[in-house]
């Protein structure tokens, strides 16, 4: 099985879906001739032409709005937000239109769009190129949100998102584009939306997370195994809807849980996961639930020491995991 980078898996998913279904097209800023600022859509313009790899003006609200309109009449658009930070002008379209069309029309209309947006920092991007906007969209019924970590899941989930009958936000970690690599089948497969995945089996502590920080968790778990601490790791993969059964099952294994994400702590996905656990499994908990997340400061700093302070890394994660194991 070929080993490929996270970004190549995403590109391959789009290419395969566009070959499979001629209603699928990509649109966004510089996704056409340039092939995307990260090269995510490179080659699609050459292969499918400008109408299926469509450059748009710098207007995210229009990108989302055009995609929603196209989706409502049967197309399967993949709209790219160049950075998830730029997604906020389109928030009204996404939350008030895309998420509600099926409900509002009593099932007469639907909106099968995919909105891809790169999230996360650590690329020296500062305030406007590093945000994690999951929590903004997280509590919106009608939206599905996926945030893959492994390249395998990135390809399979993007293909599932394209085929889904409802709007799906696809958050890809931009630092992971070239950093994360793994085995990705070249054939057609999908990873079902709404299903979490156990990355590692263990019985001392459970770590639940999604996207890039799972890399640090995996590295730390490897080191902690040398010290006799066994870690159970659950990759949520989809954060809306959450895979409750998988969350509860992984908590039952150890009774000690830590939730990790880069988005800030207050009102993040971790808060909801923790609430689910406490609602269902209070009497199986052996330690207070821990959350390790970005700090509640307005945005990612641009200066390197502060960026380092802000971001999670292997050592921070390992310390927290060890503390939980010792409790």
């Amino acid at each position, binding site marked *: 099985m070929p080993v490929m980078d996270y970004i190549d898996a995403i590109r391959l998913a789009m290419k395969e879906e566009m070959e499979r279904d001629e*209603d699928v097209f990509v649109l966004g800023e510089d996704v056409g001739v340039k092939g995307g600022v990260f090269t995510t859509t490179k080659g699609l313009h050459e292969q499918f032409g400008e109408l299926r790899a469509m450059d748009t003006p710098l207007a995210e609200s229009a990108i989302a709005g055009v995609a929603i309109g196209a989706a409502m*009449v*049967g197309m399967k658009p993949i709209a790219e937000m160049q950075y998830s930070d730029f997604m906020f002008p389109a928030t009204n379209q996404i939350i008030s239109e895309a998420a509600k069309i099926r409900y509002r029309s009593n*099932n*007469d*209309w*639907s909106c*099968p769009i995919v909105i891809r947006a790169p999230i996360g920092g650590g690329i020296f991007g500062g305030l406007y190129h590093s945000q994690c906007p999951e929590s903004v969209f997280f509590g919106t019924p009608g939206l599905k949100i996926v945030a893959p970590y492994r390249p395998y899941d990135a390809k399979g989930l993007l293909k599932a998102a394209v085929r889904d*009958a409802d709007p799906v936000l696809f958050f890809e970690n931009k630092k992971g584009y070239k950093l994360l690599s793994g085995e990705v089948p070249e054939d057609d497969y999908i990873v079902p939306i709404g299903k979490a995945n156990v990355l590692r089996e263990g*019985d*001392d502590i459970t770590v639940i997370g999604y996207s890039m920080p799972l890399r640090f968790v995996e590295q730390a778990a490897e080191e902690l195994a040398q010290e006799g601490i066994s870690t159970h790791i659950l990759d949520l993969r989809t954060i809306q809807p959450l895979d*409750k*059964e998988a969350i*509860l*099952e992984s908590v*039952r294994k*150890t*009774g*000690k849980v830590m939730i990790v994400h880069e988005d800030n702590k207050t009102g993040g996905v971790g808060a909801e996961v923790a609430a689910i656990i406490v609602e*269902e499994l*209070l*009497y*199986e*908990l*052996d*330690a207070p639930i821990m959350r390790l997340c970005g700090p509640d400061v307005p945005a990612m700093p641009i200066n390197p020491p502060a960026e380092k302070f802000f971001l999670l890394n292997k050592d921070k994660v390992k310390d927290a995991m060890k503390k939980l194991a*010792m*409790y």
Partner: protein
Amino acid sequence: MKTMTEIVMPQLAESLVSATIDRWLKQPGDRIDMYEPICELLTDKVNAELPSTVAGTLVKILVGNGENVPVGTPVCIIETEESAANTQELHSSPSVAVETAGQRADDDDSAPMRNRYSPAVQQLASEHGVRLSDLTGTGLGGRVTRKDVLSYVASGKPGASAAAASASGVDPKAQVRSSGIHLSETPRIPKIEVEGTTLPGRGETFIDVTPIRNTIARNMRQSVSEIPHAWTMIEVDVTNLVMLRNKLKNEFMKREGINLTYLAFLLKAVVNAIKDYPIMNSTWAVDKIIVKRDINISLAVGTEDSVLTPVIKNADHKNVAGLAKEIDELARKTREGKLNLSDMQGGTFTVNNTGSFGSILSYPIINYPQAAILTFESIVKRPVVINDMIAVRSMANLCLSLDHRILDGVICGRFLQRVKDNLESFNMESTLY
């Protein structure tokens, strides 16, 4: 059990904080149905009727005509006869929380967490009958961890092992049932009085053939043996029609005093299609085909023990409202047995509303000597692919039996297509008159 329910002033628009009662439509003692308007409201923004949220009897009006009251104020009291079980509050006293802290007195500096037990530890201890004070804690501050209990149990020291962890509390998903409009109604069960003679010792009953049954039998037999029947069916999306009818039916009932049925719309669609394809309105006469100019629709009306086909004469001269009235009158006369001979004569094309008894597909026998018969089947909500998307639409089948001596597939296909187009082109703007 009778309950008093207060009806409160609703929030009629986002910015409104109060409303004025213009006039009461109901008075104390009046019987009120669910959603029935009870009074008229005036506000700065809208004037509206206030529908009742319960069914019952109006007991008392709290706010008189012309009074302005804030949103949320009770305006009247309605006595309902529902069981009040749901509204009674449950005063369950929550069981006293288990103390997790244990005895502080035993704490010493080397093991401050020694007697603080987590929920998991307490649960496991009680399941396995473990006395926690026997254990040595390996956790933070000498805390007994879940794993400590598990390994203590695994070492076989305690007594009986209890049941394993309970199953997850996830409910199986409730079954989704999708039913058609007609199918959601409980079909009437025919009560057929068997009048006949039962022969002792034979498991059989002899029923005398009534004159009407005899006529039906003769006509059916003649039709089937003389007319080479062919059959075809088309599927119609009546979602817009359903919405139109829902919009108009109450008003129509109020104005005309009769039900606005789907059948009236169907007849209109059929009659208009016959005008475009007059050959549907004909009769086989061995050496010629007689095409009738008048469109007289025979309407199959079933009673408990027979079926009759009274005729709507000159159906092409009537609008939907007129057809609805005719249908209502003929159905009533049929059920009351008051049809006279002229009501039954002159039919040129038959329509049978088979959907009314839940059918979704039928193979009708032509009403001899006409050229064709059409059935209108149940309206059923179904998933339908539109522009590669799945939508839930109200669908109905139309079945057509035709005299293959007169008619062929192509002409009937076109005719059905026209009926379908006519039905599907009803929309919220369509009028009845």
